[in-house]
């Protein structure tokens, strides 16, 4: 009974979210003087209008969003504001490309090694910020944003130097050998096996959050480092560092999968900001990896539809970026309202909560 009403509520919220999104998009299109019907039609067709759109556009984009969404959720849960999923994704992509290009003849082995390299590179990239935070007290919001730029220009450098294709004509690497790529799923267009990895990771992370002692520690440290330390005897530094590095590793894996399953080469613009959209994906999911599976689909569809709108109706895709930002604002505001309600429900003697 209770379960039913909860499912119903989730359904209502989901439908409400999509309805609100659509009307917000329509409103912005109207204000911008675009052909609303044509643009919405393109949005629909480009994201969920056909089997091809679902698999090759929406789901392909949902894969990196799902992984980076989980990455952000892991970090945020522990109170680590990792804004650097983008940079960690690029680091992972670059490392995977390097391995895949260096050993084109060993097929599956190279593929696995490349995926592992992506995980390690992403973890290491986040590890820099983790070290700066725990050792020197550098705020991770700042350091991860800075590391994003370093990763972005690092990739720029690579595709013009060490990893540039032999003709030196384009800022990109050579194409990865076919045997080293992630295989495509039969009958599903450009959709590749990366989706299975992403789903497995999301399921695993959600399970760990709910059932494992490590997941519980992560939450406790995020809620109150002082209580985690004092009542839980939890090593706060260690827990935060682990969350940070795990977060980076997941984002790095996303980059590796993108290179090995979609682009087949290292490009400067490997990611259209997946690492940033991931923050919205994770927040909308309430930092729950299981719900990230669905919010990443939503954002995947939005990204796919935005591309189609630009192509077919001449609407700049930045409009959808605005919508995404509005969605985040809405979610954050809703959380604040809910929090306010619960804090006002108690009766006496709590007074003002301590600010720390």
């Amino acid at each position, binding site marked *: 009974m209770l379960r039913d009403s909860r499912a119903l509520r989730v359904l209502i919220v989901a439908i409400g979210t999509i309805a609100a999104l659509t009307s917000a998009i329509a409103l912005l299109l109207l204000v911008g003087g675009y052909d609303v019907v044509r643009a919405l039609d393109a949005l629909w067709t480009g994201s969920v209008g056909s089997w091809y759109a679902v698999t090759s556009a929406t789901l392909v984009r949902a894969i990196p969003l799902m992984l980076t969404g989980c990455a952000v959720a892991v970090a945020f849960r522990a109170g680590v504001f990792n804004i650097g999923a983008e940079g960690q994704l690029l680091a992972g992509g670059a490392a995977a490309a390097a391995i895949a290009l260096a050993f084109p003849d060993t097929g599956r082995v190279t593929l696995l090694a490349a995926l592992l390299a992506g995980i390690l590179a992403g973890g290491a990239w986040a590890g820099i910020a983790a070290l700066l935070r725990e050792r020197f007290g550098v705020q991770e919001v700042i350091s991860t944003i800075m590391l994003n730029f370093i990763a972005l220009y690092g990739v720029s450098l690579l595709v013009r130097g060490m990893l540039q294709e032999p003709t030196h004509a384009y800022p990109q690497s050579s194409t990865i050998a076919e045997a080293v790529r992630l295989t495509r799923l039969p009958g599903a267009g450009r959709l590749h096996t990366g989706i299975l990895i992403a789903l497995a990771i999301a399921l695993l992370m959600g399970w760990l959050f709910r059932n494992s002692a490590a997941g519980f520690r992560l*939450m406790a440290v995020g809620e109150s480092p002082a209580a985690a330390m*004092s009542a839980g005897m939890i090593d706060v530094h260690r827990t935060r560092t682990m969350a940070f590095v795990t977060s980076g590793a997941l984002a790095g894996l996303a980059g590796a999968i993108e290179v090995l399953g979609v682009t087949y080469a290292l490009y400067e613009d490997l990611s259209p900001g997946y690492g940033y959209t991931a923050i919205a994906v994770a927040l909308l999911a309430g930092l729950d990896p299981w719900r990230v599976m669905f919010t990443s689909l939503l954002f995947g569809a939005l990204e796919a539809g935005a591309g189609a709108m630009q192509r077919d109706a001449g609407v700049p895709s930045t409009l959808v970026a605005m919508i995404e930002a509005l969605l985040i604002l809405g979610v954050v505001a809703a959380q604040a309202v809910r929090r306010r309600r619960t804090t006002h429900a108690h009766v*006496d003697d709590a007074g003002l909560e301590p600010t720390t």
Partner: protein
Amino acid sequence: MRSGFRGRSSPHRPASDPARVTAPPLALALDGISKRFEAVNALHEVSLRVEAGTVHALLGENGAGKTTLMHVAFGMVSPDAGLVHVHGRRVELRSPADAIANGLGMVHQHFSLVPTMTVAENLALGGHGLLRAHTMTDTVRRIADQTGFALEPRALVEDLAVGAQQRVEIAKALARDAQILILDEPTAVLTPAEADDLLHWIRDFADAGNAVVLITHKLNEAMAFADHVTVLRQGHVVHDAPAAQASASELTSAMIGRNAQTRHPPTSPGAPPGETAFVARNVSVRDEQGVMRLHDASLVVREGEILGVAGVEASGQRELLRALAGRVQVATGTVTRPTRVGFVPEDRHRDAVLLDRSLTENVALREAGRRRGRMPWLALRERTERLMREFDVRAPATDAPMRSLSGGNQQKLVLGREIDPESGIAPATGSPEPVGLVVESPTRGLDVLATAEVHARLRAARDAGAAIVLYSSDLDEVLSLANRILVVHAGTVREVSMDRDAVGRAMIGA
């Protein structure tokens, strides 16, 4: 430059206000205030009349509605019904800023200071216009002169002891020209000597023509320092009379709705102490800032005894307790302790609970750092249910957020979590292990009944063989519970006989 607190007129009060001429000036009047929070009726047509020049004690148990009523007076909670008058003028208080503009000031139980800012900066918060370092400093000096408080403008608030932070809170209210001061359980965090100083200061402040509302549940404070006492119980006014007209037992029965019980039954000797549980040898400890707070402390605590620790604030008892509980690293020396040590810290909200998490998760928090593998949620929920039953924690369900509980119920759950011998990683191991418990001001902010329950639990744990180290800022609490007493003064420990005077002298190093 103003002198003292006297002779200041609020800009919001016309000079010809008839109320001032005809009747004794009523500084603050709350008429028929009602407030509901969802299902809970917090206040039911409560009226409170506070005269200028008086200290008005507001008594009541936790959950009686004292804080909510004062939140109404301070513009933090808007009442469902009722009127607020300040100096005879009807006011609509929509925010604390409105209340401050009307000459009200409130010192909350949990301070609202910015820890990383200086005293001067905290006082300047909420002001307008340009910020000048010398005016800020001057304000602090002026308030310090007025009040006799020792305030160092450039000291960082986070470096100050609790008592000093409280003085900054009061100074902050006075810097905004408060003539009506609301203090929520101000002595709860203070040592007896500090509490006494504060109460005398409150008396003087009121005598200078100001009004003070003193929220408390300490009868003796209300009887000794207040002019008028109002008692709330379950959102109703159950007693409202001059302090001189009420006896302690009348007030107690008004508060708890039954005849007063003996607060401190004399310590039963219990079983003779058993094996050694805690041993500290030449232990020195630094605080978070790296200052050595405890020097060369040695002590032994046996199973089945309560070692009471007394000391004025910041004497090193905090570090001693945390070293014994294994919560801080010792700088030198060694500590041996039972494998499982429960710890009840003084600052519950900060150090003991996850306010936004469920009761089960809060129970699960204990020793989560040592846990491996899966969380046994089913067993943890059962354990939470059992603790709620055994420790009389009144809460709707195990999945209710900790925040929704009253302070007393929160503390009972924390105590249960830390005392319960089955706590720890592998429940029901069967073998009775020595249980160690380190407890810091366990009844801070609790009402009479909850205090008595907490005390009974501690005694029961002691009688069951637990080795307990107890510090409390309330010396009587230490005396009533302890088998032996250790006094910490300026970082050194020394055992003192169970005599109030002897302990008091040792606390001040005499």
